[in-house]
């Protein structure tokens, strides 16, 4: 209950030793509460999760607009700084690192493919020539080994960097706002589905923890605790355990009122069903119309009508749900600023891409050193705004 002084690490161990005579109501816990000052609360420092997702995805859009390695590097640096400054404690806040590693892996794979399979980019600077594997005639157009040109490598480096930057932006969104928090903001009619998704999201980490525990237990039986066979043998017990836990959770949720619904008149229920189904049909038909050449005339209106009907259905469906929200994240001025900063970066880079495509896409043939375009770089720096307006609680440092 008390923080370990100096370490800044929270531990679940410290508890007031209960005296034998401690049957005084709630004595122990309250004494602890009175002794140390209340920590400042996290919620005051949180921004609406939707704002973070808008910000991150906007930065992702911006990254997709350029292949300039300097700009992409700057973008990644901006996300890294903001994540370091603003993330909340919790296991998911480490997902930024995981996504960064994934991005690096993507980059490496992209380069390796270029080396082995060659590149469509013509180049005169040959770095190394690998022995080429002769392929049968039906594999025409595929090359294994052969000349590796500097141009080809640089091109795939730029390309890989762009994908990596996109991935890192998604990682930043995950680290700043857990998807589960985003799901909490769903409309009432979708809430129950949202809970199912959240429960499913926590299923995987539990499964991994179970598998680790059971593999450790194999050691107690005198079997090696590593290797694929070990993993396979614990597979069934792990799944069994996970299933049992899911059933227990379902029972607990049921006993706590999950799925209670209000009585609504049959007419409303029928209207809801009709609106939702009709709306979804409209969306499908409208999309088809938009994508095919001849449906240009009816596509857009049908799509819009479908979306409208579906939204109305959802809204009406929300009447069946009794749920209320406990302290929903407000969409406040900071949320506007955070999402606005992201949108501005995306907008400005798109604009710059249209105005001055050469600066955002440095050429590789002939090979030139990329230059940092001044205005787009300044636009990217706008993405730092959240780090300035979202003050982080010093006590909530993730350990």
């Amino acid at each position, binding site marked *: 209950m008390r923080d370990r002084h100096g370490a800044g690490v929270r531990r679940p161990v410290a*508890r007031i030793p209960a005296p*034998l005579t401690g049957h005084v*109501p*709630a004595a*122990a816990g309250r004494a602890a509460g009175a002794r140390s000052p209340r920590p400042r609360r996290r919620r005051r420092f949180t921004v609406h999760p939707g704002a973070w997702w808008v910000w991150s995805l906007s930065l992702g859009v911006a990254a997709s607009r350029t292949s300039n390695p300097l700009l992409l590097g700057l973008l990644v640096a901006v996300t890294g700084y903001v994540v370091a400054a603003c993330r909340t404690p919790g296991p998911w806040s480490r997902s930024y690192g995981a996504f960064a590693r994934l991005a690096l892996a993507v980059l490496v794979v992209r380069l390796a493919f270029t080396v082995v399979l060659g590149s469509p980019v013509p180049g005169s600077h040959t770095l190394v020539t690998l022995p080429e594997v002769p392929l049968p005639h039906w594999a025409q157009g595929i090359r294994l080994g052969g000349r590796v040109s500097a141009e080809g490598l640089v091109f795939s480096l730029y390309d890989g960097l762009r994908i990596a930057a996109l991935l890192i932006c998604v990682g930043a969104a995950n680290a700043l706002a857990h998807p589960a928090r985003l799901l909490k903001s769903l409309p009432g009619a979708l809430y129950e589905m949202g809970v199912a998704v959240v429960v499913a999201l926590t299923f995987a980490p539990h499964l991994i923890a179970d598998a680790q525990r059971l593999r450790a237990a194999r050691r107690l039986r005198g079997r090696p605790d590593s290797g694929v066979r070990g993993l396979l043998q614990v597979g069934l017990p792990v799944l069994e355990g996970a299933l049992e836990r899911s059933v227990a959770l379902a029972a607990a949720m049921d006993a706590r009122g999950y799925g209670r619904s209000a009585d609504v008149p049959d007419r409303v229920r029928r209207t809801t069903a009709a609106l939702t189904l009709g709306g979804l049909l409209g969306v499908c038909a409208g999309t088809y119309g938009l994508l095919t050449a001849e449906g240009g005339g009816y596509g857009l209106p049908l799509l819009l009508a479908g979306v409208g009907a579906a939204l109305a259905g959802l809204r009406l469906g929300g009447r069946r749900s009794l749920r209320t929200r406990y302290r929903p994240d407000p969409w406040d001025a900071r949320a506007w600023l955070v999402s606005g900063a992201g949108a501005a970066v995306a907008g400005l880079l798109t604009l710059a891409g249209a105005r001055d495509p050469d600066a955002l896409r440095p050429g590789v043939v002939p090979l030139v050193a990329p230059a940092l375009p001044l205005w787009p770089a300044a636009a990217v720096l706008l993405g730092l705004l959240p780090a300035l307006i979202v003050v982080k609680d010093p006590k909530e440092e993730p350990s």
Partner: protein
Amino acid sequence: MIRFEDVSVTYEDAARPAVQGIDFEVPEGELVLLVGPSGTGKSTVLNSVSGLVPHFTGGTLRGRVTVAGRDTRTHPPRELADVVGTVGQDPLAHFVTDTVEDELAYGMESLGIAPGVMRRRVEETLDLLGLAELRDRQIATLSGGQRQRVAIGSVLTPHPRVLVLDEPTSALDPAAAEEVLAVLQRLVHDLGTTVLMAEHRLERVVQYADRVVLLPGAGAAPVTGTPAEVMAVSPVCPPVVQLGRLAGWSPLPMTVRDARRRAAALRDRLTDRSPRQQGTRVAHRPAERTPRHVTEQPPGTAPASLAVRVLNRLGGRAPEARRAGVPHQWPADGAAEAADGTAEPAGGAADPAAEVRGLAVRREGIDALRRVDLTVAPGETVALMGRNGAGKSTLLGALVGLVTPSAGGIRVGGAAPHRSRPRDLVRLVGLVPQEPRDLLYADTVGAECAAADRDAGAAPGTCRELVSGLLPGVADGTHPRDLSEGQRLALALAVVLTARPPLLLLDEPTRGLDYAAKARLVGVLRALAADGHAIVLATHDVELAAEIAHRVVLLADGEVIADGPTDDIVVSSPSFAPQVTKVLAPQRWLTVAQVREALGEAPTEAQPQAQAEAQTQAQTEAQAEAQTEGKTEGQTEEQTEGQTEEQTEQTEASA
């Protein structure tokens, strides 16, 4: 408030009803305790209050259960959520969200309570349960006691009029259990909440109960009454009640305070006697515990003393070639040698079974253990105690090589466990984990035993023989999941013992065990210790530690804060003192069995069995037996014990 009208529940595919003839009423504002041996349907009764039985579990419920005037027949659990709050055995399975504050709000959100009211109630509940400090914490990072309080809080926020709790303190250390019980006490007294709870650890809860409902056996009708009335006939009862039965106090004391007031005479009788060296040292009277009775018994009769049988089985085989450096040599031939005084604990002469020097373990930036020194001698039983999260399990994990030390050294049988190959290690040290099921992979008991023999390189049938000794009457084809908690523990213990490790580790072995299963475990562990096994057990159960441990090691915050003989440590600690010690202080008695023996009323040999009996028989029988006790009666004694056990087994099997 809760009314059961001639309720019986039959699960699908079950031949007999799980409970029947349940007919009682819980008035508003009472704390009612549901007691009984395991497998008598306590959880079924609890879950039928919230409507989970039969709406969620299936099966047929006859009769009628009404809660606050609502019939559970027509109201599914979610429609009862605003009047009944249910917390199951495992709080972790109960949590839907991942932070404390959201968890407290979850139930209210489902019920559609206005945001302003929710906000106020969350704050009130945080204060009521002392959780204000933890409001933003991840639930996964909380300790056991904190989790239990959050679980209770999460069902309290919708202001239910009835609270149903299944073993709320079983997994908790004594201090955390006090916290939780203090909260319940407050809810009943300040807020008029009706509480119905089941608990195995009666010594912790019986004093808080207004009334007790006893389920004496599967399918038997419940007995309802005041705690004193019910405890007089209950097969399960806390040590303070046993002491009261022994001393013939009436009405029986429910609290240490009651007992102390009446204990003056008893203390006088005991002044000139001293407690026999307690715990496993009983077992060091070789002449008296030769397993002669077993061999005399015709084959196939009721299992006599499990302890003796295990001893016999273990000792009766020729040893395999042992690795050099293994301190304890198995007796070469015959059981007599096994009991031939080789098991003198400690003494310092023999190589220690385990030696830990300056051990430190650091995990995820947290010092789980710091500068821990521990030596365990062959034949010695050591109890590791301390609050949840003090590092007990980590120390056991380090001893068995699951945890790599960051500093310091561990020698178990001359090897460093974390560097040994698992195949070699099982012959040096065995751990029965907190959840024995983790150790079991196969889908039948028979397959599990065969696998254990292969793993340990033992002769085929070794494990099965051990299982038959520990768990008479379990068929080969039984699925481990269908065993009761106690039976599963025994199976895991048999699997571990197949490799005959000289060092045996147990993590929380009594969790979820009733008194009879616990008494059997005590008997088995004593026999193993007498046979030269070093035993280290991590436990919150002070009564168990008092019963079998030679030494108690107290851990706090990853450090050893006390290490000494059991009577020294537990007598001096208010949290860890067993009830008998508190009643008879300043004299140093630890268990009812010691007192009984000192009064000359109990057999020396069948001591662990007598314990089990006192708990499984009604008071009068126990007394009658104790009075007519004599050396010649050893045989009858054992047979009675066997029958009792069989009954219990049947009970458990039918569960």
